[in-house]
């Protein structure tokens, strides 16, 4: 009889253990127990989320591969496909920020190139505690340099992302990494161990003791003993990963392999069982043949190690020598460690003894799924209805404070540490609404390009998960619309607290429902993603934080639009309507120390129409600039347009609305975009908006040295562009106490 302590160490319940015994028809040996422990962890088995994720739409005419593989695959035409996914590396990044973030990048890169795609872009969504705390600053510095250290050396550009700050992320920083790769549509590779008699090759770095039980660690709350878990974090080697990339793509190009799977979470265990389960075969592996970095490793350690930069390949016996020759060219090991066998079982031998003999289906497909109890949280403290707040007299000073706040301030300090240009595709550099990449067909640039963005707002989701999730997707699509990209697919990273708590589960259910509704409204499929539960340390959970990645197509890359004002004398137009939406805003948090009672409302149909106007105008070449209104509202958006202008260009706008001035300037009503156009195009643009039933107000003109905002003729903001630029650029370096 297994004791409670061993069960607890393996993060399995007594019921789950009994199920294992029934499924494999014996008491599991130590290595077998380890296998079930990781594969049935929340991280690998999606125990608490699976039943809910089914609601997400996953089909569509462009879908080549939906959820269930290493990454989703969409057809973008001209014979090309995009392969993309987002993954969290939250827990490791808290324990060891540099390596945690670096290996997060390494892991997602392998997910992409294991499918035959060359990674062409990375984006990161990061959340930290407030920067007045030195520990939070050090976590942020470590995470950013870890992402840079890995991505830069590997040679993939980090082209965008987002960074937010809130107390709830202090002990639970969020590090979500997105990667997109490009592949020939007919050359996608899958994680299948097909063909009995085919050989199983182990390629890449040697196996060490690092990262054992990383997946299990990510499936539990942290207490105060987290320091002891540091050895569970892996160490990244981007150089080996780069060699692995080139060698893998070369054996794929030469048609030498039939299946491939990266060794990420749960290492050799996950790759062997999943590859066999997908093909309906079995695998027999000899653990003595696994290249080892350390002496005296046990079979348990070899099977559960999460050492980085490793892959498992399946090749026909006649191609083994050719595969090994390619890996030798790139100075990498590629020993045969086993064979595909009939019967659906994974067997592993170690020093002549069989240490694993389990049916792969039990490991991969029969992990229990739970519909955990859920209950809406009781509204407390900061979520009370808004009190009667005085309207601040000085809009200019609030604008200054918002521009200086790390969440809104320029993120150049972050993205200039990332090589965002390598591969020569980055048409729109980081800092705009969305990244834009050109595509090259072999060597020749195509007319078509890609637009990418990540978006999420935990503050909104906490106030109303369903609405918050809808906003996250709507805003991501809006970001694409601003650069002229039409959304084609979604990936998501759902960061939540402990799912065994009914309030957290309720947040999760509502979020998934909202996301599903929004994806349906936009008609775009979810092709994969990641759920990260247990973002909870010492009882404090993160705000429910879905991070949404949306990929879009820009039909004509030359028509790409940026956020910056282009020239003086253009007309400034506000698309969409401004209401009293102060709940959950940066303004409320920064100026009044409140979070509000409800996030801004969202009407998905109205949202789509606003985006349609922006897209059509962009595609017709009518727009000089376009910028989404988000954190900080209209005033911040106008200031950002001025800051992004190549030649310092201010604006003078006059708003006719009789709304409270703070709501007008800093409210975060959704479905709004500020665009500029020339006199020649103004009439056509307004007519287009009228046809679509979208409110388009010509609110003023670009030009001058100041950002001037009037409400019904009364000046409520006047800030010199040079000053706005200085404050906005210095915000983050000042908060980090470093030089700009």
């Amino acid at each position, binding site marked *: 009889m297994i004791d409670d302590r061993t069960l607890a160490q393996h993060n399995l319940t007594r019921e789950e253990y009994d199920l294992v015994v029934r499924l494999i028809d014996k008491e599991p040996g130590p290595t077998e127990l380890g296998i079930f422990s990781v594969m049935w962890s929340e991280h690998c088995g999606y125990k608490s989320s699976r039943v809910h994720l089914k609601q997400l739409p996953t089909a569509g005419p462009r879908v080549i591969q939906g959820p269930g593989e290493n990454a989703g695959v969409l057809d973008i035409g001209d014979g090309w496909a995009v392969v993309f996914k987002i993954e969290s590396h939250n827990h490791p990044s808290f324990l060891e920020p540099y390596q945690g973030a670096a290996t997060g990048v390494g892991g997602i890169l392998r997910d992409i190139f294991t499918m035959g795609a060359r990674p062409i872009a990375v984006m990161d969504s990061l959340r930290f505690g407030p920067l007045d705390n030195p520990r939070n600053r050090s976590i942020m510095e470590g995470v950013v*340099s870890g992402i840079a250290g890995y991505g830069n*050396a590997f040679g993939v550009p980090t082209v965008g992302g987002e960074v937010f700050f809130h107390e709830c992320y202090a002990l639970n920083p969020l590090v979500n990494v997105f990667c997109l790769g490009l592949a020939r549509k007919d050359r996608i590779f899958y994680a299948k161990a097909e063909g009995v008699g085919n050989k199983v090759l182990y390629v890449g770095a040697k196996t060490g003791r690092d990262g054992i039980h990383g997946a299990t660690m990510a499936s539990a709350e942290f207490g105060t003993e987290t320091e002891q878990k540091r050895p569970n974090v892996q160490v990244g*080697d981007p*150089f080996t990963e780069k060699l692995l990339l080139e060698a893998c793509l070369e054996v794929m190009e030469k048609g030498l392999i039939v299946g491939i799977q990266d060794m990420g979470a749960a290492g050799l265990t996950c790759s062997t069982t999943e590859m066999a389960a997908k093909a309906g075969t079995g695998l027999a592996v000899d653990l003595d043949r696994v290249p080892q970095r350390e002496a005296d490793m046990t079979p348990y350690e070899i099977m559960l190690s999460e050492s980085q930069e490793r892959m498992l390949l399946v090749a026909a016996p006649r191609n083994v020598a050719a595969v090994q020759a390619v890996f030798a060219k790139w100075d990498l090991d590629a020993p045969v460690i086993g064979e595909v066998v009939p019967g659906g079982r994974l067997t592993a031998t170690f020093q002549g003894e069989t240490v694993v003999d389990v049916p792969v289906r039990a490991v991969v497909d029969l992990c229990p799924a739970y519909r955990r109890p859920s209950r809406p949280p009781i509204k407390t403290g900061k979520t009370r209805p808004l009190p009667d707040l005085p309207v601040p007299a000085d809009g200019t000073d609030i604008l200054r404070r918002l521009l200086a706040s790390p969440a809104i301030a320029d993120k150049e300090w972050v993205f200039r540490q990332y090589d965002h240009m390598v591969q*020569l595709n980055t048409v729109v*550099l980081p800092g705009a609404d969305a990244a834009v990449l050109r595509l090259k067909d072999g060597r020749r640039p195509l007319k078509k390009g890609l637009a990418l963005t990540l978006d999420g707002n935990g503050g909104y989701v906490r106030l109303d998960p369903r609405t918050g999730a809808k906003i996250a997707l709507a805003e991501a699509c809006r970001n694409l619309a601003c650069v002229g990209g039409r959304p084609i697919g979604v990936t998501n990273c759902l960061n939540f607290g402990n799912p065994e708590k009914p309030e957290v589960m309720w947040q999760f259910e509502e979020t998934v429902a909202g996301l599903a509704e929004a994806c349906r409204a936009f008609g775009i499929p979810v092709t994969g993603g990641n759920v990260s539960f247990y973002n909870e340390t010492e009882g404090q959970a993160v705000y429910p934080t879905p991070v949404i990645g949306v990929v879009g197509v820009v039909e004509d890359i030359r028509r790409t639009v940026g956020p910056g004002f282009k020239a003086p004398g253009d007309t400034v137009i506000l698309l969409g309507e401004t209401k009293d939406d102060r709940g959950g805003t940066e303004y409320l948090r920064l100026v009044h120390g409140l979070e509000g009672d409800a996030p801004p409302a969202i009407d998905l149909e109205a949202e789509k129409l606003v985006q349609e106007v922006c897209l059509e105008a962009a595609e017709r070449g009518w727009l000089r600039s376009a910028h989404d209104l988000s954190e900080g509202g209209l005033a911040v958006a106008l200031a950002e347009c001025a800051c992004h202008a190549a030649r310092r260009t201010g604006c003078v706008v006059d708003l006719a609305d009789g709304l409270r001035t703070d709501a007008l300037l800093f409210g975060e009503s959704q479905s709004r975009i500020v665009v500029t156009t020339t006199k020649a195009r103004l009439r056509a643009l307004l007519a287009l908006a009228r046809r679509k039933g979208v409110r388009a107000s010509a609110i003023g003109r670009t030009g001058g040295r100041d950002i001037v905002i009037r409400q019904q003729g009364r000046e409520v903001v006047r800030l010199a562009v040079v000053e706005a630029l200085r404050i906005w650029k210095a915000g983050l370096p000042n908060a980090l106490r470093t030089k700009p």
Partner: protein
Amino acid sequence: MKFGVVQFPGSNCDWDTFNVLQNVMKQETVMLWHKDHDLEGVDCVVLPGGFSYGDYLRSGAIARFSPLMREVKGFARRGGLVLGICNGFQVLLEMGLLPGAMLRNKDLKFLCQHVHIRIENAGTAFTRAGRMGQVLRVPIAHFDGNYYAPPRTRDALARRRQVVFRYCDANGAVTDEANVNGSLDAIAGVVNEAGNVMGLMPHPERASEAALGSTNGRVIFASLIQTLSRRKAGAGRKTKGRR
């Protein structure tokens, strides 16, 4: 003209450089594998950017032991044109083909951004298509680009006009603020005494297409093409003369 781009394990601007030479500058271009011993008759060798051998030990320190680099050394001694970009510059320093060394950037951070550089010597094989004092807008992307040389070398570089580029502001003024990585005398690129080997930290291949924001980097490639066609023309005349 035939260009050869050297591929080390860990090079990651190899194909970018190749594409610009072949498709933008329209030159015959080949990839040269670090384990080979043959330069395939190229007229100019380009060492591209990236992280050769992971930049472990020191940036560029291990690449110089690649078999191909023995050939490159001989090629350079015979007067062959060698251009090192970013990591390629670091490799040339480690090989001793160029004087000086690289330190970590002054703020101890990787820096990727557009910078301005000023042509300090328009008489070199690498800059003859440009003007003295011309300001180029070209991106950098490096961790170890803080150029250093001991005082005697520094004086010699100045005396022999071996400093080819300096970091400057948009108007061409060399300021502390514009010298983002803290290089000695704001040095961004140097040439060897013989004038046939140059290294620079900025990436001219990233500033060669209008779609990516700047075409200023083409000056360097255009200069190389001019130099090579003059050499060929010169060689042709000599042959004729001898006849």
